[in-house]
């Protein structure tokens, strides 16, 4: 019950910023020259006559003033209606729901990958600080962090898909293979290996650096010395005492990054032809599909609020003092 009350308070506090984001986004897109009918005509290659174009503007609700369009949008939003997508000719909520699975899968897979290995390598680097394992791990981390993800993705495709033919070059699953059950899961997993690695390696670099620094800091604290004085063995000190305290910055970071990744990764989704939210948002901007773009912003914002709420709950688990302070 206390958790629910907290959640409700959080949501209420986020509403004003949500409104500002949506209205700002709406107005920002008005500044871009051209509307969704121009984008459609660009796709058609011209030849539309004036009457048809006027009819299209009316069809997409662009024949009224900007203020009226904004008013209509907000009024629909109050009734939890995200409107109709110009590009897809379907309700925006349906379009987003179709794209959400790929994004969530990619995001959770690459975040877990980055979190787990970042933790592992961060601990190893901290325990062997300034010796060769630390140097190797830190250098590799820097290389991954500095490599542009599109290049990394393309090189992975060239190596693993074109030359070795181990993994598919793109897409979410084998098209029309009619797989079910476990075979289908394995098929989807094989399609997600390369995108997960491409996206995850960049985050891995960040996590391992944070983890290493945080470990080194905690290792110098008094309670660690006490634990050592008690005669505990080193592994037990690391897992029971140091790790738990060193995790706090990692959890903060995962909360922040989950938000960024929910918007999807345009680059990774494009390179691997995944139907995610990032590509959808990009397309919505290029095609001036306001409803879809605002819908994505709205859903992403809600998810960010949710993730941050969960992060707060995890904080309380890791460090009981935080929960008391929050009271």
């Amino acid at each position, binding site marked *: 019950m206390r958790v629910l009350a907290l959640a409700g308070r959080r949501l209420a506090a986020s509403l004003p910023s949500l409104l500002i984001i949506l209205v700002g986004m709406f107005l920002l897109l008005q500044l871009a*020259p051209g509307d969704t009918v121009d984008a459609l005509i660009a796709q058609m290659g011209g030849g539309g006559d004036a009457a048809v174009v006027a009819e299209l503007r009316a069809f997409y609700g662009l024949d009224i003033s900007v203020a009226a369009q904004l008013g209509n949008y907000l009024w629909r939003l109050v009734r939890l209606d995200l409107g109709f997508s110009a590009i897809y000719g379907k309700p925006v909520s349906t379009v987003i729901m179709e794209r959400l699975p790929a994004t969530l899968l990619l995001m959770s897979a690459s975040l877990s990958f980055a979190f787990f290995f970042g933790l592992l390598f961060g601990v190893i680097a901290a325990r062997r600080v300034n010796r060769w394992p630390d140097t190797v791990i830190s250098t590799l981390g820097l290389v991954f962090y500095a490599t542009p993800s599109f290049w990394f993705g393309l090189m992975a495709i060239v190596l693993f898909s074109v030359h070795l033919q181990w993994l598919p070059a793109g897409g979410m699953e084998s098209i029309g293979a009619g797989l079910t059950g476990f075979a289908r899961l394995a098929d989807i997993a094989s399609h997600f290996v390369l995108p997960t690695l491409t996206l995850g390696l960049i985050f891995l670099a960040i996590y391992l650096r944070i983890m290493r620094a945080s470990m080194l800091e905690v290792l110098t604290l008094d309670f660690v010395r006490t634990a050592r004085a008690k005669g505990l063995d080193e592994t037990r000190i690391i897992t029971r005492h140091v790790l738990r305290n060193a995790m706090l910055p990692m959890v903060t970071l995962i909360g922040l990054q989950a938000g960024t990744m929910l918007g999807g990764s345009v680059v990774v989704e494009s390179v691997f032809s995944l139907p995610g939210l990032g*590509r959808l948002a990009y397309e919505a901007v290029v095609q001036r599909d306001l409803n879809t773009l605002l819908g994505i912003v709205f859903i992403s914002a809600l998810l960010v609020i949710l993730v941050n709420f969960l992060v707060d709950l995890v904080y309380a688990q890791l460090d009981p003092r935080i929960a008391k302070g929050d009271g």
Partner: protein
Amino acid sequence: MDMTRRRALATSAAIAASVNLPHMAFAQETPRRGGTMTVHFATEQRILNPSLQASTGVYIVGGKIQEPLVDLDGAGNPAPCLAESWESTPDGMTITFRLRRGVTWHDGRPFTSADVQFTAMEMWKKILNYGTALQQFLDAVETPDAHTAVFRYSRPMPLNLLLRALPDLGYVSAKHIYEGTDIRQNPANTAPMGTGPFRFVQYERGQFIIAERNPTYWRENLPYLDRIVWRVITDRSAAAAQMEAGQVLYSPFSSLALADLSRLGRDPRFEVTTRGNQGNARTNTLEFNHRNPILADIRVRRAIAHAMNIPFFIENFLGDYAKLGTGPIPSTSPDFYPTGMPQYGFDRALANRMLDEAGHRRGAGGVRFTLRLNPAPWGEDIALFTTFIQQSLQEVGIRVEIVRLDAAGFLRTVYNDWNFDLATGWHQYRNDPAVSTTVWYRSGSPRGAPWTNQFGVVDAELDTIIDGAATELDPTRRKARYEDFVRRANTELPIWMPIEQIFLSAINRRLRNHSNMPRWGSSSWHDLWLAS
């Protein structure tokens, strides 16, 4: 340096030239049944029904599912498809189509003249881009019986123009699907139903489209393929990698990067060719805003043309897939292509002299004046040409500021707001100059119609020639009129069209019977097969 580049280009030329030879060898083989064709689908469209939208992005899918009244044969002449024969009255006011019998829609209902009547009046005349202009004088389509459609025009319609336009602008939709519905919102727009060799199965947005063999297709025992899968791949390098991995067998309409195309062209597994795309010729444009008094002066426009070394640009940046343009009608259109038209060769000294004579002396830093250049955001060649324009004009003292916008922004800024000095993009030639070429020159185009005369050009003589040619019924006299048109266009130079290009296909060599007609990428692929 120059030598190696030349040699590289020569290699790709040799590959392009040799493509006909293996094709002839394949003709001896027995076609194999079955297999799945996979196609690179670069830009998703809002609809897939070619009766409602005329663009290559729609034909690449819808053209396999729906069929036009008339198609083209291997030599580019009109060939029967849903219409078996046609005739025109001598005055050009009535054109009669005899329709094929025994054709059924994918849902089993018979195809009749009522479908043609409905599509022509409700779609081609009212909604279809380019169709609305082509059919604006179509008064009625009469259906004396189920297999005859009589088109009645209020102004003479040249039969040749109609037949050349119909392969693109003559796709038929089923009346029973669309009648009494809001055509723009009909679900069949993204799940098309037709009479074609392939039946629509599934469309997952952002991922793929699937169509399967139509077992009751009217061409007996065809098609050979079991399935077609279109894969949505927006990243061009990723698409090239998928071609190499064998996940995609065909990338149409120059959708890959130029560097990847020339690389694949050297790979024995692939063929990179303009063959099969002759019906999709385009010219690069340099569009002048005549509302700018500097550009309203013909001496300045001619000087700009003389200032650019187009053969150098083509040789070094576009290679053998482009050639020097000679005017608005490309050389791929033998029925209309005129020779001996006025041209503007590269002559920097002359350009400088002409600008001096026009009264634009060099000022501080050698600059005569500054112009804004808006490039269209499609096509790598446009981006390269934009830089080339900027650098060439700098040499004659014209400073060029490049204004880059995305598709919607470009169209709005150039063709609606007229907020530009120079613009560069493509003019798409659609088999007959009356379809999408003369509109670039004819005055009186409504504001905001892209790829039409939005340049402030009013040339009474040009208008007269264009109008006369549009209603000329005699093919020889029509050709002569279009020769007058090109001569006038090249003399007055309201727009310059200095480069001619044809789209490139990248094709896996396992495919047989491909690229065998001038609009193959758009065509139905009923005879395409896949070697094991």
